[in-house]
């Protein structure tokens, strides 16, 4: 998303500039981005139910989730919350109909083909399958978000 001040840059000029920049953008090469490992304890409150819903054993669900390298598509929802995908299609995890009022920071979660780590205690509607001690956002770090768009993310079972 591009923000600009319409009193300093006319919207038509902003649009022209953005379109010109978009044309010069290279496609992201599949091997680009840094590789980020998230050590994960697979003991989340929705682990068993997600396995049942997917028709697989808990062991297989863990293997499916930790067996892929995900791409971080973008960050949103909360600082440091990276939308990573895509999940193995065998993992069936629609968003919760009633989001939890409080999901603990560090929860490893899945929803609708994507996976992420909750950076803070917050409300949330994703299914919680595990947790990590890694801090995915820390405003005191030079680069506060651990995962950046384009990074490759791997969950490693602990």
């Amino acid at each position, binding site marked *: 998303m591009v923000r600009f001040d319409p009193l300093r840059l006319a*919207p038509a000029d902003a649009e022209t500039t953005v379109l010109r920049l978009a044309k010069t953008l290279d496609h992201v090469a599949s091997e680009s981005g840094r590789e980020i490992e998230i050590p994960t304890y697979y003991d989340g409150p929705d682990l068993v139910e997600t396995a049942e819903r997917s028709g697989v054993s808990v062991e297989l669900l863990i293997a499916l989730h930790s067996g892929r390298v995900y791409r971080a598509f973008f960050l*949103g*929802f909360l*600082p440091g919350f990276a939308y990573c995908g895509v999940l193995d299609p065998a993992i069936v995890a629609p968003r919760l109909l009633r989001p939890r009022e409080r999901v603990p920071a560090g929860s490893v979660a899945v929803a609708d083909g994507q996976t992420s780590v909750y950076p803070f205690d*917050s409300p949330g509607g994703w299914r919680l399958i595990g947790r990590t001690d890694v801090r995915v956002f820390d*405003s*005191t770090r030079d680069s506060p*978000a651990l995962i950046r768009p384009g990074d490759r993310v791997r969950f490693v079972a602990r």
Partner: protein
Amino acid sequence: MMQIVATGLRATIQDRGRFGHLREGVPPSGPADPYAFAAAQALVGNDPGAAAIEIVGGAFTFHCESPRIVTVTGRDVALRGRDLVPGWTAAFARSGEVFTVVGGERSRFAYLAVSGGIATEPILGSRSAFLPAGIGRPLRAGEALPLGNARVDAERAGLSAPSPDYDTGQIRAITGPHAQRFTDEAETLFFRSDFRVEPASDRMGTRLSGPRIGAREGEILTCGVVAGAVQIPSGGAPIVLLAEHQATGGYPVIATVISADLGLVAQRLPGERLRFARVDRGLAIAALRDARAALEVIA
């Protein structure tokens, strides 16, 4: 230094906002009512990028150890020192003189600006508190805040800035960006109906109830959002995003409140009504220009 004696319900430091960090999922924060904030800074002679205090629930009491120009802006607010200073008016504060921000029945967000600005350490380029991410924290009674150096221009005392009409409930908005996700009937209903502000409204957004606004079937791709975006979640009850909006949103946005009117939305109280008036982009930009021009004459 500014010595805080009492804080009201919740007081935080805010500057214009934290820009350039949406890619990390960090929202801009900043004042819920940007015009009232900018007016407060202009009245005390501060740079527009200086930090002030956003107060919810009145009764914020303080004194400064050196002479300062102070003011409070917002809806239905005043400043009580030895005398009562009306809102949107600059006052001279002697060293040690105690002031209390007084909020009336219709007050919601008040902005207390002090010449020199609040000079705490910026985090990610901004002094704005963003409590959900542990950036900044609510101010506490008994603490002292560093102030920037400023020439005290006593001539400013008595200077006032125009307050918008917070009681109107008429909110100007342009359509879209997801207008094509709504039928003409839904859009007409949206612009012709009264909505009621729900108690769950906060700095993240103003939640509305009223006629159910239905979007067409199908999901939209999650995309970046701005303050002022009017999201329509699946239940059909609109949410107007404010300063602490999430960096991205997955609900269709039927309309976007113009920048000049963001504060009018933020300052609506739970139970009050509001109505959206459709304007075009040219008028939105003209309204922003007028709002800034009104403050340039006093800055």
